């Protein structure tokens, strides 16, 4: 299954989380979501948001100037 991609580059905390939150609200449980960010804080904030809202972080990684989080939408 292809993940839903959210481009949150050039957005600073908490905007990447808000983008994810609003998009995930429209998705069904089990959907994979790939978030691309340029704010390093996203590597803490998106997993934190996932933990409190019942979603699962599948993968997080960084390249030189981009940060990637893949999550799976939970039951909510």
């Amino acid at each position, binding site marked *: 299954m292809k993940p839903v991609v959210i481009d949150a580059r050039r957005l600073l*905390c*908490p*905007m990447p989380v808000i983008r994810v*939150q609003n998009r995930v609200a429209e998705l069904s449980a089990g959907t994979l979501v790939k978030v691309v960010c340029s704010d*390093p*804080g996203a590597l*803490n*904030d998106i997993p934190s948001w996932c933990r*409190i*809202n019942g979603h699962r972080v599948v993968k997080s990684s960084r390249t030189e100037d981009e940060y990637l989080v893949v999550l799976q939408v939970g039951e909510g």
Partner: protein
Amino acid sequence: MTQQRKAVALISGGLDSLLAAKLVQEQGIHVAGINFFTGFCVEGHTHAIRRQSGDKPKRNNALWVSEQLGIKLHIVDIIEEYKQVVFNPKYGYGANLNPCLDCKIFMVRKAHQWCQQNDFDFIITGEVVGQRPMSQRKDTMPMVSQKSGAEDLLLRPLSARNLPATLPEREGWVDREKLLGLSGRSRKPQIALANRFGFEEYAQPAGGCCFLTDAKYSSKLADLWQARGSRQYELDDIMLLKVGRHLRPKPHFKVIIAREEGEGNFLRGYRKQYLSIDSLSHLGPIALIDGEVDAQDIELAARLVARYGKGRDQAQVEMEIRTPAGASYPLKIEPLTAAKIPEQWLL
């Protein structure tokens, strides 16, 4: 069976909202958090922009607080709606461009609407009587309840015993005796309570959580409005006010100069929107020019930027001028001396 009552807590990420929510949670109330993003929040952005290589984790404290409490957090983007609060505060500004009373009324009103839409019973804030000069006074706190429309559904657990009983207290959803009667600016009772609950780490921003309470920030915002001839802003404008040195050599343009690497990286992201200046011959900061400029203005801006680079004492340095469209050209200039930069240029 007793009905499970539900409260929404305004979570700023600071200690007071953490404690207020915890006090109510301890009484068996289901608590969810709500956090409003105005664009002026100190939380998050500043940490993300600066000290990229710092040791402290770059976390969002509202999320962190919610994790400590084990509650869900709803972050709400109110950037557009909030402009009217900033432009036309009915109850005026505080010491700077901070419309604290209008802001609190606005946020409680939004939280009240959220309560109604999500079938929650009441609202919690971390307000303490006498803690803030504008929005947290004995005479203004009842105004917030009234003008927001929340009325007696707004509970301030840290100061409840100094205030008239709210509906959740009168109905016995929460036990008023287990709430507190804090007042004043001392932080000692909150710190003691944090220790009692076992919270070892928490944020206590000295100037509150909003850039509008900051004199320098407010003065830069006032300058922006004056230069543009109207009280308007977009998110990028107010983000850029948080970053770099802002100097206005002439009324029609200003220069934003990065102060360190993190700010440089952030400003670099705006090169497609603003004319930018970089140093070619020496190490130096990147800068943006905000305003309509001609060749003379660009030269003046480049000389100014060179003043903050390693070549500041050279007779001539080479800078790169880049247009938003991506075209660039080198420019040889003489850096301005400190004496040639009038104090009033610095915003």
